[in-house]
């Protein structure tokens, strides 16, 4: 679903991403770990075609994101650290807007409500203006957009940082559900515990290089933490 082929990005002489080779299949949740400035956001921006690579290729569902800037985006959903929505519109209206632009089809109100419900938003919150939403509620609208879009790929950039543990847990459970339905997930995160819990694979990134990749089923929490800290040390 997601493929990076020798993908590199440099800002001036600062290398943000160094020949990344990565392939994420349908149903997989790949968690990208790494310190601030490691190149996680750059990777996601390259898949979104928000920045142009210095070299290499990014593919979404087999489509080169530069040659197919619109088609590749139609297959994915993007959830940043904080999902940005229109303050003067309600959660439902925001979902309606983003969903109809993302899918070019019109959902009925009850369909939209179902999406929000699946994403875990309380029904009475749906009609409130976004101005009154907590961060967790915004992230849920983001998930609802992804569900409405029937995205095959999720690109998540630290979506749970700043969420309370319960909300964070809820979020992870939603991801697990979506991946069971065949969605491929690439998530940048600092949360080693969550990465081990809901990820199928984790990758550790350091100064733009993906230094190690592991299947979560093969390691334990403490082991993962040990490996991570080991990489960060040198």
């Amino acid at each position, binding site marked *: 679903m997601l493929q990076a082929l020798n993908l590199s990005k440099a800002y001036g002489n600062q290398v943000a991403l160094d020949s990344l080779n990565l392939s994420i299949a349908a149903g997989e949740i790949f968690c990208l770990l790494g310190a601030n400035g490691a190149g996680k956001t750059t990777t996601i921006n390259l898949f979104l075609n*928000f920045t142009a690579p210095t070299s290499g290729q990014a593919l979404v569902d087999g489509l080169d994101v530069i040659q197919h800037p619109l088609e590749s985006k139609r297959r994915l959903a993007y959830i940043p650290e904080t999902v940005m929505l229109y303050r003067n*519109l309600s959660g439902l209206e925001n979902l309606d807007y983003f969903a109809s632009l993302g899918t070019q089809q019109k959902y009925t109100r009850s369909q939209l409500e179902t999406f929000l419900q699946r994403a875990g938003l309380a029904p009475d919150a749906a009609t409130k203006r976004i101005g009154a939403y907590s961060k967790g509620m915004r992230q849920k609208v983001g998930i609802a957009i992804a569900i409405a879009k029937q995205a095959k790929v999720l690109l998540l950039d630290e979506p749970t940082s700043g969420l309370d543990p319960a909300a964070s847990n809820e979020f992870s459970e939603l991801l697990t559900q979506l991946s069971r339905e065949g969605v491929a997930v690439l998530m940048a995160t600092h949360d080693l515990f969550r990465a081990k819990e809901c990820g199928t694979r984790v990758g550790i990134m350091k100064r733009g290089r993906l230094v190690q990749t592991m299947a979560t089923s093969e390691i334990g929490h403490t082991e993962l933490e040990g490996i991570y800290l080991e990489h960060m040390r040198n």
Partner: protein
Amino acid sequence: MIRTIAKKEVVEALRDGRFRWAAGLVGVLLLIALAAGTRQFLDLRAQHEAAKTETRAHWLQQGKKNPHSAAHYGVYAFKPKTALSLLDQGVDPYTGVAAWLEAHKQNDFRYKPAQDANTLARFGNLSGAIILQALIPLVIILLGFSAFAGEREQGTLRQLLSLGVPPTQLAWGKALGVGVSLAMIAVPAALLGSAALVFAGSNGDYGAAWPRFAGMAASYVLYFVTFIALSLAVSAWMKTARGALVLLLGFWVVNALLSPRVAASLSQRAIPAPGAFQFARNIELDLARHSDGHDAGKHTAKLLAGTLQKYQVTKVEDLPVSFVGIRLQDGEAQGNQAYDARYGELWNQYERQGRLQEALGVVAPFLAIRSASMGFAGTDFSQHRHFAAAAEQYRRYFIDVINQDIIQRAGNQGVYLRGQDLWSQIRDFEYELPGAGWVAQQRALSLAVLAGWTLASLGLLLLATRRLRLE
């Protein structure tokens, strides 16, 4: 997709208190200006109509008198006002709308409100045209400056573009949204305006008003589309909404506030035209060089000699025609020559100044819409000149009828009096404004400049959205 985007923009605008205030304010101002304009227009037309019948009745009933006295008694000629002039007074307050026609004089225009009003009143007069040309662009800027830059700052732009929305569609949708929001302000006013138009045109002249109305509406659409596209282009281009707002307001100030003054002084410098006092003095000097019909100078002696020779007589008393009449007609011809030369020169200068200002519309579209708008309203200088020429033609016609009567019938002795049978031989002054096609031709430069601005600003918008930046 464009409709979805436009709808969301409108909903957001409606929920935004700033827009509601601005729109309400401009809407109310527009209604006030329309109401005041309609009232003024109806008053003026009633006055003209009354004066027109009155001036004819007075003319016919002036009693027995010497025909030349009747020529000095004179008549008024009124320039018809289109209903659209209630929106745009154009140059009428400066040029006047009633010509006083009498012997010897040309272009004696009366009823120039601007002449009487003090400066404060002149600028205090909030016309529909000023609202449309200056205030509405301000509303467009307020609606458009944050269209892209605001979403960029809020982070919703990333969200939108991650959906696979083509940026150009986004631009068209937003442009449509601004257009619809604007229509919410303009449509109630436009409906009431049209009602006023139909009401005002109730005695038949409004069939001819529609092509002019269409021309004016099209000009304003071009002007507004230009501002919508420019606002969105700048919003897409600039990093921050604040930066976009500052740049757009700067352009607005140059366009609506500075350009009319700069253009006026530039055109006066490039094509100097004499002021009113200087002009009057020039005419006076020219006329002094000619006989003016009452003067017994060298010229009269020469004219007499020529006439006597023509009729092969030696004394005035023996002439078969009235020498007084010949002298009057000759004076008229001399005067016409002087007036034609001076007015022709002056009006060509004004016309060229006007064209230069239209061309300066390339820098500030305000200049182009101003001239197109008064053109279609029938209140620009070209139509003043058109009317003045027709009035002058009529003046010559009726002075000629009177002078010919004197020449043929007055003889050379005693008092000569005529009555209504002569007065009624002179047909009434009838004048129709030229059609919308004529206006479009006269104002072709402004219309081309407006179309150019529209195309250029749309091109700029396309360019800016193609390179839409995320940060």
